[in-house]
């Protein structure tokens, strides 16, 4: 049973009652059409539309969180559904000419439904603007829900690569300064081992929020793989990117993360490396060069093995 079905059970019951009441009235007062009289095109068109409106109502309830936008859209769709239902009924049952109420019942709910639905859509638009502002650093230009990482609220490496590819192509036509930062959590494996994998996941989510808060609105942050994050910084010289990367390292080092159950402070440390987009022809070249650079940084910081 969908999440919010219970919340809408009374309005849904009302619609169901209205539909069955009208059906009952039609049967009581009208005369059913013979099979030969059925107009298949109308039945398919109007009946099909009724079914589709029903499907829309189902998915709106199933997917949208409760609130103003959902209510307007839901009630609007209910009125439209009733209108379509009445419309379909007269394909099967003929009412005597002198009865007028059926025309009223058919026409009045429709504009009301459309009005409510339109108001809902308008508020939805405003809601989207608010969400987009919130999501700005996590997606540029277009949205594709399939490219979102399952663990952190960021887009994944695949999305980053498509954006980087587009940026490199654009850079060939009109060169501009653009940089990429790769950030790797230091000793993350040890955190996983000491505090458990769930804690590790929680840290990744924490870190993704922290980095996102410490970037400019035009920057793009994605989860690269495992404990690595990657950023695309438009209009940024390499020197500036280096400064930003160092700032991110400092920020993570002084930030406090507390373990969820024991309130133990877990220190975080990140290593970063960056490069300028202009030097590379393809996204693949850039990423593998960045990976090599990171390897050197990590070697520099890794504890040396001593054999006695």
């Amino acid at each position, binding site marked *: 049973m969908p999440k919010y079905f219970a919340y809408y059970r009374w309005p849904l019951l009302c619609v169901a009652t209205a539909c069955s009441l009208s059906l009952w009235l039609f049967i009581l007062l009208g005369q059913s059409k013979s099979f030969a009289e059925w107009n298949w095109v109308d039945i398919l068109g109007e009946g099909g539309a009724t079914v589709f409106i029903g499907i829309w109502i189902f998915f709106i309830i199933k997917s949208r969180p409760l609130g103003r936008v959902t209510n307007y859209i839901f009630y609007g769709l209910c009125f439209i559904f009733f209108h379509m239902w009445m419309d379909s009924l007269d394909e099967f049952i003929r009412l005597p000419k002198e009865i007028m109420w059926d025309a009223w019942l058919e026409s009045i709910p429709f504009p009301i439904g459309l009005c409510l639905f339109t108001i809902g859509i308008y508020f939805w638009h405003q809601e989207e603007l608010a969400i987009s502002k919130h999501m700005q650093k996590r997606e540029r230009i277009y949205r594709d829900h399939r490219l*979102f990482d*399952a*663990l952190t609220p960021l887009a994944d490496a695949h999305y980053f690569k498509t954006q980087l590819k587009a940026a490199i192509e654009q850079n060939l036509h009109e060169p501009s300064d653009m940089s990429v930062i790769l950030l790797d959590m230091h000793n993350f494996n040890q955190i996983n081992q000491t505090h458990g994998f769930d804690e590790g996941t929680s840290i990744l989510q924490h870190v993704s929020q922290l980095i996102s808060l410490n970037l400019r609105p035009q920057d793009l942050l994605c989860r690269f*793989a*495992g404990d690595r994050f990657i950023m695309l910084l438009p209009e940024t010289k390499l020197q500036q990117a280096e400064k930003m990367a160092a700032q991110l390292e400092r920020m993570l080092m002084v930030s406090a993360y507390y373990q969820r159950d024991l309130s133990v402070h877990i220190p975080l440390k990140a290593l970063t490396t960056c490069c300028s987009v202009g030097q590379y022809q393809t996204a693949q070249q850039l990423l593998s060069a960045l990976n090599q650079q990171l390897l050197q940084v990590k070697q520099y910081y890794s504890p040396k093995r001593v*054999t006695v």
Partner: protein
Amino acid sequence: MSFECDYSYIPAHHQLSILIDLAVSHEVEHHVLLSGSGIFLEDIFSGQKLISQQQLQQVLTNAEQCFRNQDISFLFGQRSLTTPFNDAIKSMLYASTFDEALSRYLTFSASVSPWLCPRLMYSQSHIHIYWLDENKLENRFLIESAMSAIQAFSRQLYQTKLAWKFEFNFSEPDYIEQYWTHLGSALEFNRPINMMSLPRDLVHEKLPNASSTLAAISYQHALKEMSAQNIQQSFLLSLHQYFMQNIQNNIQLEQTADYFQMSSATLKRKLKKHQTHFQAQLDQSRLHTAIILYRVHGFKTEQISQYLQINDATNFRRAFKRWSGLTVQAAQS
């Protein structure tokens, strides 16, 4: 006696529990993960249910499809040898040297790596681990899991990242960043077999976490458990060993069936059940022999083809290309 892929001996709450945990953290429905495997969540929680290799592989295939992230094979692998489910893994985790741990990895392969059977090869300078994966691309997920399992296991034993070198039979995947992050940067694609290698002098070092008493007791328990369950050798492994021993003879289906005391039709049927066929298995053994002869004994192309009873070097070159997808020169470079 060997066991087959539908023989139930793996406790459902061992390796599968890792996947169930991953499904929870990645918000994947467990019934999607378990669909078609005949396993239910209640079975896993009962702690009693035994499953077969086939069922485990089915769940891993589901995992490959139902997780949106492409790091599940690595995450699963990393935890599979570092979580002490059973005595076999304990005897590896507390072994005194990595060499000892690896030999136990082979001995207990049925319970510590039930999704892919590992093999070892010692050359002058390196130790190489490879698997009976038939170079199938469908096994990429399993290979990723097996390699990250060994990598994470060795990291836990040495308390540091080791200089593993990885070779893959397939070409570079588009999610290469997962390989960089989870395995390392020493990666080579389009190689004759899937294999990971480590300098040999490292494997005899004394390990910091070794506990010889605990390891010895766990080892004894694991041996007992193994003979009680009758899982010393899988069907495909015993076939592989028969091939490796007789590789210089002209191996035929009928003789092989005789050796295993079954009819040719039964042998064929069993191979089909394991989603393979006679020629594929024989080719795999020949390819592995060729690689061993080249890497360990430094044989030349002509010597290898003579050893394998392929009289004509051109024929050998053609056959090698068919087995590995590579020319002999490319494989040796």
